[in-house]
């Protein structure tokens, strides 16, 4: 066997070539798919952002004009601010809940399996369904939430949650939290299961308190998974569209107008494809920046 593994000069040419080509044969389909379906559209999007275009017969090259018009627009910064606020709150609560529940679920037993299945349900449900269930729950007149709160005397009159300037934002955050925390939970759980439980026991025997064990032992042991999850979760929610579009369409006013709603509007309501593409590129750069910052921050901590 060791003979075969070393590329001896006596190895005949055909076999040698095969050896070099075979690995590429296996990964070629994935590479072609990603080049055609990810890299190409991405570059094409950047190309479109330099034009004033209807995507059909009108292609006026305008250089960076689209970008200039974005950055001279205070609405744009306002929307980015809303998006950042939204993403920050959603991710923060996802992680608090996800870590807490992931640790709670990291034991054995039939009841735990039951809870695992229940607690992962929101992640399985389509965004559209989640949005509409909550739209129904939050219905000002017939919604369960208003009626329950009235019953308990917590509020005195019906609240139109989704068209209220103050509440609308918190409602979309709450729905995004409900929908998204299972991802963090499952990743934490999976990571914990791949770490030997001995180190937790050792920490306990040494007399570490629960919080100490959590901060000094548990979290560091799953930090790589947490970092990746943090990056993915941030990018996913930063550009989220469906739930907000169906719940508030960015309203009332522009209070929940996060950036993907704006991109959608620019492209498919005002037909400014070039500008929308330019905003997409900016969003991409922001996501990249956030990723870089996380990496630097979390990796230099060691």
């Amino acid at each position, binding site marked *: 066997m060791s003979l075969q593994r070393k590329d001896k000069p006596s190895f005949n040419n055909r076999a040698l070539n095969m050896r070099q080509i075979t690995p590429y044969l296996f990964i070629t389909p994935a590479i072609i798919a*990603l080049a055609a379906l990810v890299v190409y559209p991405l570059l094409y999007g950047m190309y479109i952002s330099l034009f004033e275009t209807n995507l059909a017969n009108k292609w006026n090259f305008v250089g960076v004009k689209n970008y200039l018009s974005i950055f001279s627009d205070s609405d744009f910064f306002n929307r980015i601010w809303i998006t950042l606020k939204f993403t920050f709150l959603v991710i923060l609560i996802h992680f608090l809940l996800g870590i807490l529940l992931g640790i709670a679920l990291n034991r054995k037993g039939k009841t735990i399996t039951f809870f695992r299945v229940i607690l992962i349900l929101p992640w399985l449900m389509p965004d559209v369904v989640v949005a509409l269930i909550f739209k129904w729950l939050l219905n000002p007149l017939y919604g369960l939430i208003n009626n329950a709160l009235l019953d308990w005397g917590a509020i005195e009159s019906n609240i139109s949650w989704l068209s209220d300037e103050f509440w609308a934002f918190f409602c979309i955050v709450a729905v995004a939290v409900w929908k998204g925390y299972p991802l963090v939970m499952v990743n934490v759980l999976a990571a914990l299961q791949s770490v030997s439980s001995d180190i937790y026991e050792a920490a306990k025997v040494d007399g570490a308190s629960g919080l100490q064990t959590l901060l000094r032992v548990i979290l560091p042991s799953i930090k790589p998974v947490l970092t990746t999850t943090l990056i993915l979760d941030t990018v996913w929610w930063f550009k989220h569209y469906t739930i907000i579009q169906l719940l508030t369409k960015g309203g009332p006013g522009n209070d929940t107008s996060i950036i993907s709603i704006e991109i*959608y509007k620019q492209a498919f309501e005002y037909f400014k494809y070039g500008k929308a593409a330019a905003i997409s590129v900016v969003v991409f750069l922001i996501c990249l920046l956030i990723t870089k910052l996380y990496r630097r921050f979390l990796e230099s901590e060691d």
Partner: protein
Amino acid sequence: MKTRSLKKKKILSGIGTYTVLIVMAVIVLIPILWMVSTSVKLESETITIPPQWIPDHPTLESYKRLWSEYPFAVYFKNSIIISLGAVILSVGFSCLAGYGVTRFRFRGKQSFLTFLLVTQMFPSIMMLIPYYKVLSTYQLKDTYLGMILVYISFTIPFCSWMMVGFFKTIPLELDEAAIIDGCSRWRAFRQIVLPMTLPGISSSAIYAFITAWNEYMFAQILINNPELKTVPLGIAELNGFYKILWNDMMAASVIASLPLIILFVFLQKYFISGLTAGAVKQ
């Protein structure tokens, strides 16, 4: 003394754990049960004050209407074709990639792995406008193939990444032995190694299926033909009617969620282990 206080601590932490789990389970279940409850109500019963959890006249009328009055049978067919297409292609491609990456040394391997991760960081909305244009250029707008291609662009990176984790856990000696026994590379892959990664294949398949089945934004832009609309589009459409029939909409929501929940309950063991394998890789 010490063991006693430890035991006490353990019981307390157990109580704490279960309190947290129960509270969260209630928060998760209320909206879901409310969906189910609304779906078996008559229209008049959906708007009673106070709302009733259990209707006086439970009925499956809304479910029947989905098939008779609304074209949900068509939507379902479309969703199934598109999702299965996406599953087959992404699982196929990612199994090959997983095998290739773990079985061979070759130039560009590390860049390939990095690339898989990096693609996850592109916000998908950035692809929306290019796809809108590219699909019409190649006459793939309003086709199953077009939608499948869009969805595998989301799923292949993550599935490949999971599969790499899985193939890594299978010892190289296995294929080497098979090849010495005269198996071809391809047969070693297909008949010896691949069957052992079944848990990985299941988790990739679930992931791809969920992603394709639930997707709304791209479908909304790229599908205009009513004959090709998917279930999420159909449900969102009910929301756009002048008068929203909550019972019908919730029945459609139940039907849209059910396949995923059933799939997951059966395959959940595989799924968690799938993520674990990915985690080990990191």
